[in-house]
């Protein structure tokens, strides 16, 4: 249940740490796991000359506006077998305009709903899918 002004943890290695939702890219108020949103980066890892060489082309700074996909929510998700799953925090992964993840690695686990919403690349990068 992510909406305007919701803060999410960024769990890839793009450099951002905390992002704030500024738009839900659905004709709805809330976004769930697997939905795309527009975020503004609120906290990012400091960029030095060393890190810039190892990162991919995109350098994320505080105040950047990017797209992201939600991977974990504190609000429970209903599974088809009647099970409800909920995580301890809200988390997202930053995307570029072609819906490819910006970072090259994902830290932490993601919800299995991503697979059914066709975020296959993220699922394959994730160390654990619940």
């Amino acid at each position: 249940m992510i909406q305007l002004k919701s803060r999410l943890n960024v769990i890839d290695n793009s450099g951002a740490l905390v992002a704030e939702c500024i738009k839900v890219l659905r004709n709805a108020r809330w976004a769930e796991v697997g939905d795309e949103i527009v975020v503004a980066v609120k906290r990012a890892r400091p960029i030095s000359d060393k890190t810039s060489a190892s990162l991919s082309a995109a350098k994320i700074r505080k105040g950047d506006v990017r797209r992201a996909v939600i991977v974990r929510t504190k609000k429970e998700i209903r599974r088809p077998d009647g099970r409800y799953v909920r995580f301890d925090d809200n988390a997202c992964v930053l995307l570029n305009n072609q819906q490819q993840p910006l970072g090259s690695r994902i830290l932490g686990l993601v919800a299995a709903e991503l697979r059914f919403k066709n975020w296959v690349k993220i699922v394959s990068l994730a160390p654990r899918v619940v």
Partner: protein
Amino acid sequence: LEICNLSGYKIYPSHGRTFVSRDSKTYRFLSSKTESLFHQKKNARDLAWTPIFRKLQRKGVSEEVVKKRTRRAVKYNRAVVGASWDAINARRTEKPEIRAAARAEAVSKAKEQRKDEAAKRKATRPSAPQGDKLNKHQARSAPAKVSRSGR
């Protein structure tokens, strides 16, 4: 069929919730009650209604325990100071006919022995007078018996 992480009850499909914590551990809860208690960091061992508590405090187990505690006396084959094990066993496994025959033999033997002894005694002893047997004092003091036929 899963088990509730807090209470230990069985969770049937489409019941309860799954919670994934920050350190990627997955917990299954049967109800909002158990979920709430988990987040309050309650220990199941302190909650009197949980099976874990009951097991620790051994509630409702007494019926089973009483039945199992019967002890059995073990039988050993032992020799006694007076008789070795072989002797004891031999005696035990003797047939009754043999025993009767042995007893009859012993009885007849004893009788024979007694007869011999009686005969021996008779031979060695001088023939005792038919009258009274008196000792020295009585012999002096008491008057001699007078036979009536003398008059």
